[in-house]
């Protein structure tokens, strides 16, 4: 069959998402209020349907031999997307409500729903899904841009503050710069190999004598540095704190999770071009350096912040560092020769799948913590009984939540403990996975740096948790009554527990099999033979 049609057959979920995005525009701008109010539902149902379609659609043969990475990342993106949607529902409405008093007097709920917000939301998630499915450098570039471009608009329109627009502008210009950097890197990779298709590039690299040529390495280095922007890794991290601070908190949660997932999916694919057996030295040094710097800078700077959104921004930078450690550890072919199912300890030592697992664990905890922050509102200056988003949420604002809203405090506690890596929560399993893979790959130093950084990070995570429980209640704080927000946060809490326990196995198998070459099932079929022979001899 036509390879283009084959490819299209795997793109059903994306097509559903695009249709949903258009539908959101239609319903969001419809004259009837009821239609407009239904827009978040349209977005949610679209993602649910796309999820089902992902599970049903055929798994294509990956040019780099990553068996299940495409469905894994798509499901991850959709799962996080659904949670984030629940956090983001109502952002446009609240925008209207918090306008100045004159317009608030004329406030009409019918004006409130602005469909384009949800439309951009879906488009960005689609970008992540396309990133995972990329088999070509051009495709990869376009998919990454599709992830980023809607987020600029989402930031700018999320709050009626100058800070939001400033954030959007900063994010946009730096994003464009980083896109130029990694596009330049892609161009050099094309120059070094003569191909843009991943499989062909990998073959060309394998054919190079004495390892990848210096042009190829240079291209890789530029591509990695450019992608560091997406994952907010040093030296491309400087924007993160400012942008996170300026955007509305739900959108910040989106920024902390979605572009990062796309960035790591892209990094796995780009590094997969040269492979991990072994990783070329310059790239390994580069990644180790970035990982160490990112963790340390992120944690140290988070420690000294007082604005909680900045704290969580730097925490997200630090987690990129941990994830990079898993990425540099990677996997060796013999490590992942077979599917991990039914093999005791079979998944340990696979750095890439550790990254995939940790993305989920990190995403859950981050969404949970931002959801709690999003619930914290200040008294509105002009509207009686109304509330507005804080310009800066400090430790004082979350102090003593426990006394007024124990559920939020509990959610925050679990999120913080998961981020710090406390057993038996998801973050702990993720950290064990990452550290185990760095040991396996021989980067003992990285393991030690992770451990030291965990200790530093306990400083601010614990401070947040303790402030929630032991602080003096701040009377000026309002709590947003948004059931979807709480539900979303509660789901992340449940997930943090589930992924720290036996339920994590399913995800670990999936994440491990994501990088198992597809020939594996054939090998796995050979294994049952001894048991057959045994049964015969028994008879």
């Amino acid at each position, binding site marked *: 069959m036509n390879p283009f049609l084959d490819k299209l057959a795997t793109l059903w979920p994306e097509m559903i998402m695009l249709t949903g995005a258009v539908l959101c525009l239609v319903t969001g701008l419809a004259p009837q209020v009821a239609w407009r109010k239904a827009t978040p539902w349209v977005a949610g149902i679209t993602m649910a349907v796309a999820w089902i379609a992902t599970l049903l659609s055929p798994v294509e043969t990956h040019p780099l031999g990553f068996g299940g990475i495409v469905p894994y990342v798509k499901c991850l993106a959709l799962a996080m997307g659904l949670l984030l949607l629940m956090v983001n529902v109502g952002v446009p409405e609240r925008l209207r409500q918090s306008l100045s008093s004159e317009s608030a007097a004329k406030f009409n709920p019918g004006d409130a729903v602005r469909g384009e917000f949800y439309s951009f939301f879906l488009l960005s998630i689609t970008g992540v899904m396309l990133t995972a499915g990329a088999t070509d450098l051009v495709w990869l570039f376009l998919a990454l841009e599709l992830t980023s471009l809607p987020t600029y608009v989402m930031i700018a329109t999320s709050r009626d503050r100058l800070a939001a627009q400033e954030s959007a502008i900063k994010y946009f210009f730096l994003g464009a710069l980083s896109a130029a950097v990694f596009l330049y890197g892609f161009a050099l990779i094309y120059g070094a190999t003569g191909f843009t298709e991943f499989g062909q590039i990998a073959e060309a690299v394998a054919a190079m004598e004495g390892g990848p040529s210096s042009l190829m390495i240079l291209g890789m280095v530029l591509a990695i540095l450019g992608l560091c922007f997406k994952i907010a890794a040093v030296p491309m991290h400087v924007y993160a704190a400012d942008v996170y601070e300026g955007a509305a908190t739900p959108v910040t949660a989106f920024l902390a999770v979605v572009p990062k997932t796309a960035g790591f999916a892209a990094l796995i694919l780009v590094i997969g071009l040269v492979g991990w057996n072994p990783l070329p030295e310059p790239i390994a040094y580069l990644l180790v350096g970035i990982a160490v710097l990112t963790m340390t800078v992120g944690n140290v700077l988070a420690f000294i912040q007082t604005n909680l959104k900045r704290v969580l921004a730097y925490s997200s930078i630090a987690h990129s560092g941990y994830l990079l450690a898993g990425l540099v550890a990677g996997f060796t072919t013999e490590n992942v020769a077979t599917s*991990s199912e039914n093999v*005791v*300890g*079979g*998944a*340990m*030592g696979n750095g890439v799948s550790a990254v995939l697992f940790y993305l989920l664990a990190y995403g859950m905890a981050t969404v949970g913590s931002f959801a709690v922050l999003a619930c914290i509102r200040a008294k509105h200056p002009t509207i009686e009984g109304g509330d507005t988003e804080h310009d800066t949420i400090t430790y004082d604002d979350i102090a003593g939540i426990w006394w007024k809203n124990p559920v939020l405090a509990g959610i925050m506690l679990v999120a913080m*403990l998961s981020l*710090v*890596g*406390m*057993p*038996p929560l998801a973050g*702990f*399993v993720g*950290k*064990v*996975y990452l*550290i*185990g893979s760095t*040991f*396996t790959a021989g980067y*003992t130093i990285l*393991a*030690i740096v*992770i*451990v*030291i950084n*965990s*200790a530093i990070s*306990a*400083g601010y995570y*614990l*401070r947040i948790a*303790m402030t929630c*429980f*032991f602080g003096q209640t701040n009377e000026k704080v309002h709590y947003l009554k948004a059931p979807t927000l709480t539900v979303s946060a509660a789901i992340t809490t449940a997930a943090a527990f589930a992924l720290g*326990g*036996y339920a*994590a*196995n399913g995800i*670990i*198998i999936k994440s*491990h099999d994501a990088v198992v070459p597809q020939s594996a099932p054939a090998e796995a079929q050979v294994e049952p033979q001894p048991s057959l022979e045994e049964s015969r001899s028994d008879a």
Partner: protein
Amino acid sequence: MDPAWIISLQLYLPVLFAAGLLLPIPALSERKVAWIYSATTSCISLLMTCVVFWAFDWSQPHVMQLSAEVPWLPQFGLTFQFGVDGVSIWLVGLATFLMPVVVLGSLLEVDHDMRAFHFWLHILEACLIGTFIARDVLMFYACFEFSLIPLLFLIGMFGHKNKLKAAKVYFYYSFTGSVFLLAGILYVAWFHFNQTGEWNFEIVALIESGQAMSVTEQCWVLASFLAAFAIKTPMWPFHTWLPLAHTEAPTAGSVDLAGLVLKLGPYGLLRIAIPLAPAAAALFAPYLGVFAVLGVIVTALICWVQTDAKKLIAYSSVSHMGFVMLGLFAFDGGDIGATGAMYYLIAHGLASGGLFLCLGMLYDRFHTRDLREMGGLAKEMPMWSFFFILFALAAVGLPGLNGFVGEFLTMMGTANSPDGVLGWSFAVAAASGVILAAIYMLYCVGRLCFGPLKLPEYVPQKEVFEAAISKRTFHGMSRREVMTVGPISVACVVLGLYPTPMLSSMEPVVQANTAAVKAEIAKLHGSPEAEVEVAEFDTSGMEVSKQRLYNMDLMVEPIAGRDVRAEIKQAFGTGSISYSGSADISGLIAEVAAEYQAEREAAQ
């Protein structure tokens, strides 16, 4: 009942009871109801422990019994594996024994968030039990690490004036130590993977392959383990978090902290660190001994100048833990030191728990613990004074009480320690710590109990005080208070007078865990005493008996054609030697031993 269920229930019950407190029943928020609930549930846990004691086969204490396995993450080779042996069963017993006592004692002190208080107490109990019964090193780590959270809340929510700082310092200190433990564990697991090709976190499996690590690796691994365990124990100079945590914690927190949480450190050292890195343990032992002795003496001197009674007891814990570390790293031939150290864990848990409870009662009455503000209580509160003095004497080590057995055994082990590890000089120095302990404890007792009656200034004077205590029916104590400290005092006396069952069940476990270190010490220091194991075989090759040779006469007969001298000499290096027959070769062994030692000295 299936034996696996017994130990699982022991672990799950406290968690279930804690979950019960989360039920939306408004009555549970009331002080009395929550208190009765908690007292009942903790007694059920204690009954469960009785079942465990009953099901345990006491003739084979060194075998892990009542084992259960629950899959956790098979993909990582991780399972929740638990079971009890001769040491852990006693520690589990201590944990469940102190729990109802703590609940009983905390009725008056805690006056808000009753649910949260009892919830975290139950969770803490579960964590402690989990740590003591873990057979999987990551399960051990998970419980060890998670025990930080309940105590953080007990201190942070229910503590005294400076509680936030105390909670923070406690958490940071312990957390920093234990992340290094995690790195060490994963390194050993990775080493095990290299050796065997599979990921497995079972303690026994890791110990087996861990011993194959090079000495440098072992040193790093032991250092990372010590980072967690020395802080938890706490070993001087890593003890600075403890006095703060104790002074700010509520009584319940203090009792659990001193009585149980501190025990995790030495237990982890014996169960995991020492057998896993025997060569490093042999190398580190003298240095750790120096720290331990310094800790004993320095903190005893610090105790002497304390005016806060609770701080005094807290520092005395550090001092007493020095004895534990000494005994643990003595590695003497008969394992007297390490067995004594394990016994001392229980003894100290009881005595210090009792002391903290007594001080808590005092605090309930006067809202102060300042030694300068109170005195002469023996006349007004004779019952309280009786218990306080009893526990103080148990802590000091009065013969007939449990502290004496522990101190005596650890010091005896230290004195018997092979050359180059510890020795009589350490024992003598530690003994001076015992004298200091007597001084500061009796000073504290003297201040509080004897002399003219003195009450804190801001307590309404004598008449009110008398009215207050007259309501407490029993010579200055209420029945509840007597029920709180009574069981502990009985346990102190019983264990002091009849320690044999506990010691004899602990000894085989301790021996199994220190055997590898002793072989390493023999290699290092060439001490023949610590080393040779003579196994006797009958003609069919069955092992008849196996004994470690110290100065005993063994009837064995050299078999023709075997080079006895060479084999014995080799045995000094490797650890076992086998013969069958009836000739006395002890003279021969002594001869070879002297020769072997001379050779080593020449080589050095």
